[in-house]
């Protein structure tokens, strides 16, 4: 006996799927054409295209795909084209794991994961268990490696900066600008924020700066307005803010400005881009970001500018400077494959990557070591936002307090 409600349910489901069918991209499997005619090198990209990490993951991947087309048009890597197979994690652990499994089942020989070690971890574990080189283009901590994943983590790397680099760059910026006192605001949502602000604090004091107050909140704890109020009245020459582009960021900036504090607010790459800024010009002013590239079309590197304009023309305008890390990671992968004479074995590729010493990439020279699987000592772009408009100011190295690998 079929109950009437089940029939109704069937009608609803049919309707929903019918509606969905009108929106889906239905196709047969159409192979891409490649100038390089060898067997493709398949990179399984297990990233967030929908949720929290989308502003960071997607531009990096899109830039890498554009870069891969260029490489393929010039004959590929030792005659083999690069092909990305993309799986959306929606920043969910279970989807990250199943996406990685599916990517590997689809033939991925290298795994490309989301830009945060916490969100990436399930996919990384799968990559490592299959002995694949596992790369995050823009995770900006040293967690992609043995420190977090044990001995198997020797196959995992990130092309993002180690937090000591970013902390030191921001400290140097403040001293250089004459902002000798700072209030530090740390969002405890991610280790990255804690590490950047921690490194900034140490380096700023070594450089002669004074920390007026250390404030913190955790995205979601609904205390950001109170923290902003304290920061606004702290009397410091600048506020250093370590958080990301969740709803708390515009709330913090709006609160500080509304309370009459117009002094500089400085932050790392995680608050880069104009997309999150409050639209009122009086509020979105005197913001400073240490990032990987300018997304305001004025990056000093012409190749970066060209890539930015190409992405913009294709309707994929990058939201943050992290987009250059996509091509950088791809360049690193290509260098490793070439150094290993075409081998795609995870162990061999990882050995090549860990021996990178100032390998030239779009984002600057890249160095790794057994201890550091994130990039150290790379210069960062300083971008200033004034009245809703961003402008590239300078490129700044971490200086003497940045971590230096002795090679």
């Amino acid at each position, binding site marked *: *006996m079929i109950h009437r*409600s089940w029939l109704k*349910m069937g009608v609803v489901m049919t309707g929903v799927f019918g509606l969905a069918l009108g*929106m889906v991209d239905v196709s047969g499997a159409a192979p891409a054409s490649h100038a390089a005619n060898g067997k493709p090198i398949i990179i399984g990209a297990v990233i967030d295209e*929908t949720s929290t990490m989308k502003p960071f993951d997607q531009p990096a991947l899109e830039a890498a795909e554009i870069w891969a087309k260029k490489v393929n048009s010039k004959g590929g890597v030792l005659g083999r084209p690069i092909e990305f197979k993309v799986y959306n994690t929606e920043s969910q652990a279970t989807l990250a794991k199943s996406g990685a499994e599916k990517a590997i089942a689809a033939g991925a020989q290298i795994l490309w994961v989301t830009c945060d*070690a916490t969100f990436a971890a399930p996919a990384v574990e799968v990559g490592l268990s299959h002995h694949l080189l596992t790369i995050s283009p823009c995770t900006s901590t040293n967690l992609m490696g043995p420190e*977090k*994943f044990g001995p198997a983590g020797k196959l995992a790397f990130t092309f993002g900066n180690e937090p000591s680099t970013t902390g030191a760059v921001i400290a140097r910026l403040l001293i250089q600008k004459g902002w000798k006192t700072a209030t530090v605001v740390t969002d405890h949502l991610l280790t990255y924020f804690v590490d950047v602000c921690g490194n900034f604090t140490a380096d700023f004091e070594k450089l002669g700066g004074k920390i007026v107050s250390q404030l913190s909140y*955790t995205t979601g*704890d609904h205390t950001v307005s109170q923290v902003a109020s304290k920061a606004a009245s702290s009397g410091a020459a600048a506020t250093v803010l370590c958080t990301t582009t969740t709803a708390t960021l515009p709330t913090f900036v709006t609160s500080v400005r509304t309370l009459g504090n117009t002094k500089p607010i400085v932050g790392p790459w995680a608050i880069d881009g104009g997309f999150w800024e409050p639209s009122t010009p009086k509020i979105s002013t005197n913001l400073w970001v240490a990032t990987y590239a300018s997304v305001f079309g004025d990056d000093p590197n012409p190749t970066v500018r060209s890539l930015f304009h190409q992405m913009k023309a294709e309707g994929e305008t990058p939201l943050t400077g992290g987009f250059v890390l996509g091509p950088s990671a791809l360049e690193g992968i290509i260098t490793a494959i070439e150094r290993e004479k075409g081998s795609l074995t995870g162990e061999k590729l990882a050995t090549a990557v860990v021996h990178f010493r100032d390998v030239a990439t779009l984002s600057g020279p890249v160095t790794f070591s057994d201890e550091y699987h994130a990039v150290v000592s790379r210069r960062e772009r300083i971008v200033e936002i004034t009245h809703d408009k961003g402008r590239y100011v300078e490129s700044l190295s971490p200086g003497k307090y940045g971590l230096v690998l002795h090679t």
Partner: protein
Amino acid sequence: MAGGARGVLPEPARARLRLAAEALGPLALIAIVALVGAQLSTADKTDAINVLVITAIVVGLYVFIGNSGVISFGQISFVAIGAFAAAIWTTPVGTRDATMPDLFGFLASPRLTNLESLLVAAGLGAVMSLVVGLALMRLSGLSAGIATFAVLEITYNVLANWEKIGPGPTVIANVPATTGIPQAAIGCAIAIAAAFGYQRTRSCRLLRASRADALAARGIGVSIFRHRLIAFVLSGAICGFAGALYVHELGSVSVTELYLALTFSTLSMLVVGGSQSLWGATMGGTLLGVLYSFLSNAVSGTTVFGLSFTLPNGLNTIIFAVLFVGALMLAPRGLTRNREFLAVALGERAPHPRGPVAIALAGGDGESPGDVETGSSGGEAASRSVKFTPGQPSP
């Protein structure tokens, strides 16, 4: 069919048959998911494992929410506690030293086996739920919902910030990934068996009587507090156990995974399946789990009957949400209408919305159409086992 069986079999035999079917239905569903999952590719197997683990969590929710009728947003706290305990105690000590240097000594050094971690997770879930339950089990309705939500918030913030008991906001990685199809299926079956065993107890029947009419239950001397607490502790144990299954499935865990999204998705599964029956919980967990996996895969491209298609990003969630709303509108008491397996299979009536105590208070004789709670979740038995004792204190 029901009438036929009634005519052929004597009452005790029919009762035993019904009992066996009520247990075997959910177990058979789990077996089917496991058997089908075992035939899939390694990649798709991951989805099947996840469906089984999520179903175990939904069954954990059912034990308290379904039987008591009290909404709880806090059960994922016990999943999180179980998951963190299992993760920390099974991660290699070297990894713990490197990534969680501030851990308490009792967390930093011992290393448990897979089985030990599952048992410890269940035990911790039970202990934590006992502590919480002692404080909260006198609450009902909206108050209970808000209070249990506060428990979730407290758990989340403690785990996210206190680095003496975990990694804080970051991830515990390098956890042995021991939850394959066999462990997930056996684990889910254990959860179902525990839930089934509990719902046959007198305590559960009394709790269901209080769900149907708290005032009447108190009037006949039922200690609602005590019976809710028992259900809450068992639910906490199952949730802690499922948390350990979950972390051994993924090989890593962070506190953000065990928070609002998991709370609301598992509650949705329970409600859509039918929150007041074990069959409903199992159906909700497996059906919605499979549907969610299918839609999520479709975003990255999938093939059905030779037709390849890709859903635009986000459409999977929209479809899921629309179906959820549709299910609630068309079947507000869930797809199973709160009936157990055999009752659904035989097309029997859904239980009376207010249960046998209300019927009794209203003067029903239990024989009239609409009074009989056939194939229900134990309300009939509840009315048999509740004895009125003058002077018995109410809670």
